[in-house]
Every structure is written in C-alpha cells, then in structure tokens.
C-alpha cells in the first residue's frame, strides 16, 4: 500500500533532511513540500495526504493553527524546536512530536507509529485534537485566532474581538468586521485568553474590557455592560465581581 505524504516546513535544510530520512520508507511517497501555513493547509485539503510532517513556527499560519482548521484530518507528525514541557505533554497523547534536531532512528519510530495508526483506519483524529490544548505554551497568552469563513481562512488578532458568545457547540466571536464561529468551548477561551483583558462576565459571554463604555443597572440587583457600539450584555453576579476587580470599579 502506498502512503501519500506531504511536508510543511519553511526551512530548506530541514526539508531536505526529511526527504533523506524518508528514503528508508519506500512505501511513503511525498506529494509535495510547502513552506508556509496557508499553502500547507490548502495542500492538505486538496491532496488529502494520509501523513503530514508539520513544522510549528511558520509564516501565515502556525502548524497548530493549520491543525485546527483542517477538514480532512491526516496522521500528523510535528517537527519543531518547540519548548520542552509542552512537548512532554504532547508525547503522552499524540502520534508523535519530533524535536529538532532528531536522529534517523527517532524519525523511524515516529513514522512507524504513524503507519500503524494509518493501517488501523485513521482513528487518530480525536487524539490529535486533545493534544492541541496542551501543546500551546501555557505561559504565553493567545494572541490571534485562525477561523474559516466560507472558503477563506482568516486570522483575527484577539484585541479586535469585542466579545465571545457561547453558541451551542461553537463560540461566536463578535468583531467590528463581523462575527466568526469557532468549534471550541467557552472554558477553552477563558483559560487561554489574557485574564487581565478578557473577563467572563456571564455564562454566555467573555468580554474584552477595552470595549466597555459603561456599566449600568439592569434592575435592582443585576448589571449590564454597555459596549462602545451600544450593544448591551448581561452581567451575572459572579461576572460582576470579576469585572469590578479587573477595571477597579
């Protein structure tokens, strides 16, 4: 059985090394190499490879963002010089993660693991998804979010988002340029956003405090936040406490 693979990597020597190591696996054929996140994502969706070697730090979209936006989910092996404790967490739960520089033996272990998964009929998808959360560096805050809108991919800086709203299995992000949906939980955003700038004011809302114009009484006990586009959002009593602390009310 021939396995179709692609390489997404922005450094030439690193790409050449992968080609070289892959000579040991004649059953794997490389359909292409791509040097940025956008073209890599497009290639995965169009070429539908079974195996992808994915770098993390790349122009346009990072490897992690590519993974989030995939429709077709192949077996993925990360290749990167990423920081280490995140790597450990990943290794426990994903296909594999190659830390640059890596040996041909270490590479073979990863590829064999992937081949085994592929022959077991692609049941690796949920495993990769659970790995993403732990892969993001825990000490740095989310700075941008990649979303699919129609056939286009958009990268939204978090400071452009007015607020996040729970919407079934999705979270709706409200920006001046329109709304975007992302298949994530509110809890995910609450933990990954900078808690000094984004406050969970209600079960259904996480608010960017930059956009608050004023806080008003809704009735005797409840408050609403008035945003600078005149939208009003309900604040729960626990949310009010968080907000009070955040903006020194």
């Amino acid at each position, binding site marked *: 059985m021939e396995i179709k693979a692609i390489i997404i990597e922005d450094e030439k*020597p690193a790409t050449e090394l992968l080609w070289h190591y892959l000579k040991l696996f004649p059953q794997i054929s490389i359909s292409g190499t791509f040097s*940025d996140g956008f073209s890599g994502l497009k290639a995965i969706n169009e070429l539908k490879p079974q195996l992808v070697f994915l770098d993390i730090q790349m122009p346009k979209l990072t490897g992690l963002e590519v993974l989030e936006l995939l429709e077709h989910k192949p077996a993925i092996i990360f290749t990167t010089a990423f920081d280490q404790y995140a790597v450990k967490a990943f290794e426990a739960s994903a296909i594999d993660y190659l830390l640059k520089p890596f040996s041909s033996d270490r590479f073979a272990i990863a590829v064999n693991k992937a081949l085994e998964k592929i022959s077991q009929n692609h049941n690796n998808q949920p495993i990769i998804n659970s790995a993403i959360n732990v892969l993001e560096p825990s000490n740095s805050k989310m700075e941008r979010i990649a979303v699919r809108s129609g056939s286009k991919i958009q990268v939204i800086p978090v400071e452009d988002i007015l607020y996040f709203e729970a919407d079934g299995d999705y979270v709706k992000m409200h920006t001046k340029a329109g709304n975007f949906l992302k298949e994530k939980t509110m809890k995910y955003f609450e933990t990954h956003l900078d808690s000094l700038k984004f406050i969970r004011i209600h079960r259904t809302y996480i608010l960017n405090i930059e956009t608050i114009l004023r806080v008003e009484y809704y009735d005797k006990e409840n408050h609403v936040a008035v945003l600078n586009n005149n939208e009003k959002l309900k604040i729960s009593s626990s949310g009010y406490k968080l907000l009070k602390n955040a903006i020194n009310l």
Partner: protein
Amino acid sequence: MNHPFFKSLQHLLIYAGAWITVTVIHAAVLLFFYDISITFSLIDAILFNTLFALFGLSLWYIVAHSRFNKSPILNGFITHITSVTLLLLIWISLGDLILSFFSENNLQYYKFHSTALPWRIISGIFYYSILILIYYIINYYNDLQERSIRETRLNEIIRTTELDLLKSQINPHFLFNSLNSISSLTITNPAKAQEMIIKLSDFLRYSISQDSSSLVSLKEEIENAKRYLEIEQIRFGNKLQLEFNISEFCFEKLVPAMILQPLFENAVKHGVYESTEEVYIKTNCHSEKGSLKITITNNFDPEAKTKQGTGLGIKNISERLKLMYQQNILLNYEKENNLFTIELAIPQNS
C-alpha cells in the same frame, strides 16, 4: 535645584550657628579693639552679618546654575566678580541705611563707622569666598553622588541585559533550528555543514565573551551580525537578502558591544519568519554631527497578524544607549507601509 541649607532643619541650624559665631567674633572685635559700646558693637555685628547670611543663601543659585562648558575659568571669574561687586554694594548700602535709623550720637561708633568701608569690603569678599567655596564643594559632592547612583543603575541594567543577551544568544529556537540545519547539511553538503558549525561557534564565542559595557569597532560588530545573518541565510536561503553599505571610515568607529545583533534578530524574526516573500535587510552607516548614524531597514509582510510591536530587544538597546551616553533618544524606529526602519545614533565626541 535643592538648596543644601533648606534640605533639613539641621543644615539650616548649622548655617545659622556659623553666622552666630561670626557675629560674636565681630562684636567682640568692635568691643575690645575699637572701644565701641556693647550696644553698638552688637547692633553692627548683628545687622551686617544677618544681612550677609540672608544674601549668602541666594549665592547657591549662582553656583548651582552656572555650568560653564566653554572657558570655565574666564566665565566663572566674570560671574563672581560681578556678583561680589553687586552683593557688596547692596549689602553695605542697605546696612548703612538701616543703621541710620539708630541714633548716631555715639561718637566712638561714629568714628569707626566713617572708616569702616574698606574693612567691610575686605570682610565681605572674605565671607563671599568662603561661602562660594562651600557651595562648590557641596555641588561637587552632589554631582559625585548623582554619578555614583547613575553608575549603579547602569551596572544593574548592564547585568540584566547581559542575562537577556545570554538568553537571546542562546535563543533555543535559533540554536536548535541551526543545529537541525547542520544535521541536514552533514548528509547533503558536509563542507557547508562545517562552515556553519564554525560560524555558529564564532557567533556564540563573541556573544558570550563580550562585556556589554565595552566598546568595540563597528567592524567587529558587523562581522558578528553577519555570522548570525549568514546562519539564518543557510536556513532560509534566498528568502533572506542582505545589503551592507558601510564606509571604511565608519568601520573604524567605536560602538557598544552586542548592540547590533539583537536588532538584526528582530528584523529576521518579524521579517523572515513571518513572510513568504523575500526579505531585504539593508544596513547603512554615515557620520553626522559628531555621531555615527546606523540605519537598519527591513521589509515585512503587513498581513502577518502577530504583534509587530517593538519587542523587549529594541527597548533594551535604547535603554543601554541612553545610560551609556547620558543622552535621550539615541534610537528611533518607524514602521511605514511594509518597511521597518531602526536608526541608531552613536555619539563619537569622546
């Protein structure tokens, strides 16, 4: 400017105490050597010394505010001659005016008073000189203290930048990715692998050995930056294009060590890492008004949605220059369309 005698009650009391001593001696001299009655001896001593003590306080401002950069001796001389003349004129005429309100029927005192002018001038000049001397000493001492505070701060910053430098030089991303490239080149192009190992070693050696308070020639700095940039070029190929436009004249000049590499690293990080197009890093240098102007320009992808903000690196360099040269704003940067430009001004007059 803080007046030294108004800084605390203690200082003011010392000043007053000194003048009380002078007043007592003054009165005693009149009483015993000129046979003037105790009343007039005291009136004369208290009046003239109190006036001088009050005027004397203001002399501090002459010392503190006159910084003569050009011919300090001549200018200082002129200033003090003018101020001592004015002071004596006002002091003696005001003293005599007030004295005229007291009765003048004491013959002994009147006799003294009519001959007192040269005596007063001499003592006035003497008091003036003593006071000015004290003020100069205080001023010098203050300067010294200020300088030592500044130096401590400079050392502190240097220490933290040294730490940051070490961390950034051994920037794990750069180092491990470079090692990965070497690993690849050992198979595909061993000669190039060797070249890269030597460049990486030289770069690390230079970075670690430089004391960040020391000065090196621009040539050495550029050579080190080139080692760094050439390693990045091996990783990114044609995507990174370099252009240096530096005259031999500039190469000889001295600049702080490890001041350029962080700026190039910044250009690579925001330019090359985030772009799919070719990125040009252009470096120019020329001399202007006694300082060396170094500009580093790079294009970047304006679509890249990362924080293009000025990183800690640029802030650190700016702070280091400010402390080393005691001048504000030696680093400027601007972002225009898809071009990022940093301009450094390194003073050369020392």
